C-alpha cells in the first residue's frame, strides 16, 4: 500500500507538468513577477518564501527555466531603468553637474559638498536596496539558479542583476541628453570630498566608503574575473588627482623652505593616506597612492629639502636635531634604500667639520706666540710645561693640538654616532658611508698617525690615572676606532713604538695593564703582525728586570766592600724591535763617539758588560745614555753655612754633567764647550739637558752666566748652592724634545717609512709570485694592494718601481709585453 502511494505521488506532478505547460508558466510568472516587484518595494513580509520558491521550482520543472531567467532579467532591467535610475538622477543637483563640467570650483564647495553628500546618500541607499532585494530574489530563485546557471554556464541571476545596476544606473546619463554618467558624477564627487579632506575639512567617510565598496563590488563584465569597476575607473582617477595634489604640495612646502616642516607634513601625509585608504577607500590602493606620494612629494624634493639653506640636514646636524634627522631619514629611506641624498650631505658635513678640525690643529700648531691656548696648555700641562719658557711653548702647544685634534674627532664621532643610532636607526649603509667620510678627512691630515699615537701616549702616561677600568677601556676603544680609519697603519706603528719606547724606558707608563690592554686591542683590530714588535718590546722589558735582579745578586756576591755601590737598573733591548732613531748613534752619517761616563759609572758599565757577555757570548751592547735616568744625592751648602740635601732624579746625561761639578772646586765654572768636550754628549741633548738644569726656575741647580734664555757655546755654568725646593726629592725632567716632530724629523721618518714600505712591498710581491708563478701586471698590482691594505695604502708608482727592481735582481722575469706578464724565477 505504501509503495503504491509512493509511486502514485511521484507520477502525479509529472503528469501535471506535461499537461499544463504553457498555461501554467504564464500564470505562475504573473504571480512571481508581481511578488518580485513587491520585494523591490519592500513589501516582502506579506509574501511566502515557500510559495515563490515553489512557483519557481515548478517553472523550472516545466523545462521553462530559461524563460524564467530571461523574464526576471527583463523585470530587473525595467525596474532599474524606470524607477531607480530616476531616483538617482533626481538626486543629482544641477550644481553637481555644473561642477562636473568645470572641475576647479572651490568657491561653491559648501553647496557642492551638501549636494554631493545627498547624491551619495541616495546612491548608497539604492545600491543597498538593490543588493538586499537581489539577495532575496536570488534566494527565491535558488532552484532556477542551481539548474540553469550551472548547467548552461550562465552567470547567476544575482551577478546579472548587479551588471544591470551598473549598466542602467551607474552608466545612465545624468540628464537625458548629457554625456555625463552617474558614475562620472560619483567619481568627481568622491575626489572632491577627498580633496576637501586633504585641505583639512572633515568629510563623511563611511558614506564614501560605501560608495567605494559598491564600485569594488561591481565588475567591468559579467564574468567575475573581469576587472573591478573600482580598479578600472575610480582608482586611476584618484591616483591622478593625488599625483597632481602632491606635486603642488611639494612645491608649496619647498616654498615654505623649512626642512623640518617638510618632513613633518610629509610624514603626516603618509599617515593620512594610509588612514584614508583604510577608512574611506580600499586597502589595495594604499601601496599605489603611497608610491605616488613617495615619487611626487618625496623623491622629487628630497634632494632640495636635504640641501635647504639654514634648515636642511646640515642645520640639523649642527644643532643636533635628532627628531628632524630621523624624519629626513625615514622619508629618504622610503624612496631610496641607499639613502643617497642624505648620505651625501652627512658625508659632506663630516668632511667639512673634519677639515675644520684639521685646519685648527695646524693653526694651533703654528701659532708660536702665547695665546689663550698657551694658557690652556699650562693648565693642562705636565711638569715640563710648568718649566715652560717661551721656547717650549710651541712644542707643547703642538702636542696639545695633536691631542686636541684626536679629542675633537672623537667628539665629532660621538656626535655622529648618536645621530646614527637615534635618527638613522643604525642603518648599515649610512654607517659605512659615515665611516668612509671619517677615514677620508682623517687621512687628509698627513700627521694623523702621529697625532693618534700621541693621544695614546698622553693617556697612557697620565690620562688614565684615577679612572676606572671601564673608563680606560672606553678611552682606548675610542682611540682604536680612529686607528681603524687610518690608512697608513705602518706609520702609526712606527710612532707608537717610538712613544712606547719612551714610556717604557723613562718609566712614564701609568699602568702596564693598560698598555697590555691596548696591545691586545690593537691586535684584534689590525692583526698579529702589527703588534709583534710591540710585544717584543714588552718582552725585552721583562727580561731586563730579571737581568737587573740577577746582576744585583751577582754584585752582592762578588762585591768589593770599599766600592761605593751604585744601583744599576738596566734594560737590554733588541735593536731590531725598538725604534731605530732612539738607538741611533749616528746622525747624518757621522758616528758619534759614545759619551764619556764619569769614573764610577764607567766601572759599573764595565762590570755589567762583563757580567752580561759572560752569560750571552757574541752579543754587542751599546749604551744608550740618552734614554736613562739616575737618582743622585746632592748636597747644597747654603751661604749661611747650613747644609741642605736633596735627592735628585735626573736623566743620565744630567747626571754626567752634574758629576763634572763634583770634581770642581766651589765657585768655579765650566763653559759649554768644556762640558761638551768632557762628556761628549751630543750637542742637541746637551743643550736640552742644560736648559733643564740652568733655565727652569724650579730646578735651577746650575747657574749660567750670562743669564739669558738661549744656551750659547760661550756660556759658563757653575753649581748653584742656593737651590731651593720644598721637597727632598726633586725630579728634573729633560726639556722634551719636540714631541710632535719638526719638519726635519718628519722628513726623516717619512724616508724611513718609505724604505720600510719598499721592503714590505717587495716581500708581498715575491710572496704572491711564488705562489702564482705567473701573473699579469694588473693582477699582480691588485693582489699586492689587497695584501698590503691592512697596513698602508701603497703608492702605485712605488709598487711599479719595486717590480722593476725585482726584475733587475732576477727574482722575476718578464714573460710577455701584451698584456704585460711576469713570471717567478725560482
Amino acid at each position, binding site marked *: 500500500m505504501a509503495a503504491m502511494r509512493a509511486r502514485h505521488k511521484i507520477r502525479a506532478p509529472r503528469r501535471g507538468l506535461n499537461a499544463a505547460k504553457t498555461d501554467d508558466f504564464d500564470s505562475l510568472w504573473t504571480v512571481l513577477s508581481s511578488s518580485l516587484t513587491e520585494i523591490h518595494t519592500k513589501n516582502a513580509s506579506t509574501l511566502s518564501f*515557500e510559495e515563490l520558491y515553489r512557483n519557481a521550482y515548478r517553472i523550472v520543472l516545466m523545462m521553462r527555466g530559461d524563460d524564467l531567467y530571461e523574464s526576471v532579467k527583463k523585470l530587473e532591467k525595467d525596474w532599474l531603468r524606470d524607477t531607480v535610475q530616476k531616483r538617482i538622477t533626481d538626486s543629482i543637483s544641477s550644481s553637481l553637474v555644473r561642477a562636473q563640467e568645470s572641475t576647479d570650483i572651490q568657491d561653491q564647495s559648501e553647496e557642492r559638498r551638501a549636494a554631493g553628500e545627498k547624491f551619495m546618500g541616495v546612491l548608497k541607499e539604492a545600491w543597498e536596496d538593490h543588493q538586499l532585494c537581489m539577495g*532575496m530574489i536570488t534566494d527565491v530563485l535558488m532552484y532556477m539558479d542551481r539548474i540553469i546557471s550551472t548547467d548552461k554556464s550562465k552567470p547567476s541571476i544575482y551577478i546579472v542583476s548587479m551588471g544591470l545596476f551598473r549598466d542602467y544606473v551607474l552608466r545612465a546619463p545624468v540628464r537625458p541628453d548629457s554625456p555625463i554618467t552617474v558614475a562620472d558624477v560619483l567619481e568627481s564627487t568622491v575626489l572632491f570630498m577627498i580633496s576637501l579632506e586633504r585641505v583639512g575639512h572633515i568629510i563623511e567617510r563611511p558614506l564614501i566608503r560605501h560608495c567605494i565598496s559598491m564600485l569594488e563590488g561591481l565588475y567591468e563584465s559579467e564574468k567575475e574575473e573581469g576587472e573591478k569597476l573600482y580598479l578600472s575607473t575610480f582608482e586611476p582617477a584618484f591616483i591622478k588627482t593625488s599625483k597632481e595634489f602632491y606635486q603642488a604640495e611639494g612645491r608649496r612646502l619647498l616654498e615654505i623652505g623649512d626642512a623640518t616642516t617638510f618632513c613633518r607634513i610629509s610624514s603626516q601625509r603618509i599617515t593620512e593616506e594610509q588612514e584614508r585608504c583604510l577608512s574611506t577607500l580600499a586597502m589595495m590602493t594604499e601601496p599605489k597612492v603611497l608610491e605616488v606620494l613617495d615619487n611626487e612629494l618625496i623623491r622629487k624634493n628630497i634632494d632640495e629639502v636635504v640641501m635647504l639653506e639654514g634648515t636642511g640636514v646640515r642645520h640639523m646636524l649642527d644643532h643636533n636635531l635628532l627628531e628632524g634627522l630621523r624624519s629626513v631619514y625615514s622619508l629618504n629611506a622610503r624612496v631610496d634604500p641607499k639613502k643617497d641624498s642624505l648620505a651625501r650631505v652627512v658625508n659632506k658635513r663630516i668632511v667639512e667639520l673634519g677639515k675644520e678640525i684639521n685646519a685648527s690643529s695646524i693653526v694651533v700648531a703654528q701659532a708660536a706666540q702665547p695665546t689663550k691656548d698657551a694658557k690652556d696648555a699650562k693648565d693642562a700641562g705636565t711638569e715640563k710645561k710648568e718649566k715652560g719658557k717661551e721656547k717650549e711653548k710651541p712644542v707643547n702647544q703642538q702636542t696639545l693640538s695633536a691631542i686636541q685634534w684626536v679629542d675633537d674627532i672623537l667628539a665629532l664621532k660621538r656626535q655622529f654616532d648618536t645621530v646614527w643610532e637615534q635618527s638613522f636607526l643604525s642603518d648599515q649603509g649610512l654607517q659605512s658611508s659615515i665611516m668612509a667620510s671619517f677615514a677620508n678627512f682623517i687621512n687628509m691630515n698627513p700627521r694623523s698617525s702621529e697625532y693618534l699615537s700621541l693621544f695614546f701616549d698622553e693617556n697612557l702616561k697620565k690620562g688614565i690615572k684615577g679612572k676606572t677600568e671601564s673608563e680606560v677601556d672606553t678611552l682606548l676603544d675610542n682611540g682604536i676606532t680612529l686607528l681603524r680609519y687610518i690608512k697608513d697603519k705602518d706609520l702609526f706603528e712606527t710612532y707608537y713604538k717610538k712613544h712606547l719606547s719612551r714610556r717604557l724606558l723613562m718609566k712614564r707608563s701609568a699602568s702596564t695593564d693598560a698598555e697590555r690592554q691596548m696591545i691586545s686591542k690593537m691586535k684584534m683590530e689590525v692583526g698579529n703582525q702589527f703588534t709583534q714588535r710591540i710585544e717584543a718590546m714588552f718582552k725585552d722589558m721583562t727580561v731586563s728586570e730579571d737581568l737587573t735582579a740577577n746582576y744585583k745578586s751577582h754584585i752582592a756576591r762578588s762585591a768589593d766592600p770599599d766600592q761605593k755601590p751604585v744601583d744599576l737598573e738596566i734594560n737590554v733591548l733588541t735593536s731590531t724591535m725598538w725604534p731605530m732613531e732612539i738607538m741611533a748613534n749616528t746622525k747624518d752619517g757621522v758616528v758619534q763617539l759614545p759619551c764619556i761616563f764619569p769614573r764610577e759609572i764607567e766601572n759599573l758599565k764595565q762590570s755589567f758588560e762583563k757580567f752580561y757577555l759572560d752569560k750571552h757570548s757574541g752579543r754587542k751592547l751599546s749604551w744608550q745614555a740618552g734614554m736613562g735616568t739616575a737618582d743622585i744625592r746632592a748636597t747644597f751648602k747654603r751661604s749661611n753655612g747650613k747644609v741642605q740635601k736633596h735627592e735628585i732624579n735626573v736623566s743620565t746625561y744630567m747626571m754626567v754633567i752634574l758629576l763634572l761639578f763634583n770634581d770642581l772646586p766651589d765657585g768655579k765654572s765650566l763653559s759649554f764647550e768644556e762640558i761638551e768636550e768632557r762628556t761628549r754628549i751630543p750637542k742637541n741633548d746637551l743643550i736640552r739637558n742644560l736648559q733643564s738644569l740652568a733655565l727652569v726656575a724650579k730646578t735651577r741647580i746650575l747657574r749660567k752666566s750670562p743669564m739669558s734664555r738661549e744656551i750659547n757655546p760661550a756660556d759658563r755654568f757653575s753649581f748653584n748652592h742656593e737651590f731651593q725646593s720644598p721637597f727632598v726629592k726633586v725630579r728634573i725632567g729633560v726639556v722634551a724634545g719636540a714631541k710632535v716632530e719638526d719638519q726635519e724629523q718628519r722628513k726623516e721618518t717619512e724616508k724611513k717609512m718609505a724604505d720600510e714600505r719598499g721592503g714590505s712591498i717587495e716581500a708581498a710581491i715575491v710572496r704572491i709570485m711564488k705562489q702564482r708563478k705567473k701573473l699579469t701586471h694588473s693582477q699582480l698590482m691588485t693582489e699586492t694592494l689587497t695584501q698590503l691594505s691592512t697596513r698602508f695604502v701603497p703608492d702605485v708608482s712605488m709598487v711599479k718601481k719595486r717590480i722593476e727592481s725585482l726584475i733587475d735582481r732576477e727574482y722575476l722575469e718578464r714573460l710577455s709585453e701584451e698584456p704585460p706578464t711576469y713570471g717567478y724565477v725560482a
Partner: protein
Amino acid sequence: MADSTSEYVTLVSCDGFEFILPRSTACISGTIRRMLDPASKFSEALTGRCVLETLTGVVLEKVCEYFFYNEKHKDQANVPDMDIPPELCLELLMAADYLDT
C-alpha cells in the same frame, strides 16, 4: 508569534502535520535556511513557520529524521546507514532536490 530569531521553528506539511525542531537542525536544508534568513523579510522568516506545500507528512517526517541524523553524525566517519523504506525512496529524492539538502 515566534520571532525571527527564536530557537525553534515549525515545519508544516501539505496535509497539516507540524514538526517543531531546532532552527539549526532545520537549516541543514538550503531552501529552509534561505526561507528563514532573518535578513530577508519573507513571512516565514518573520513567523518561524514554514508551510511546505510539496511535502506530505510522511515524507516530511522522514526528512526531519534525516536532519537529526545528519546533525548527529556530522563530521564523523563510519556512520551507520539510515533506514529508508524503499517505497519512500523516490519521494525523498524529490524532496531532497526541492529542499536543497
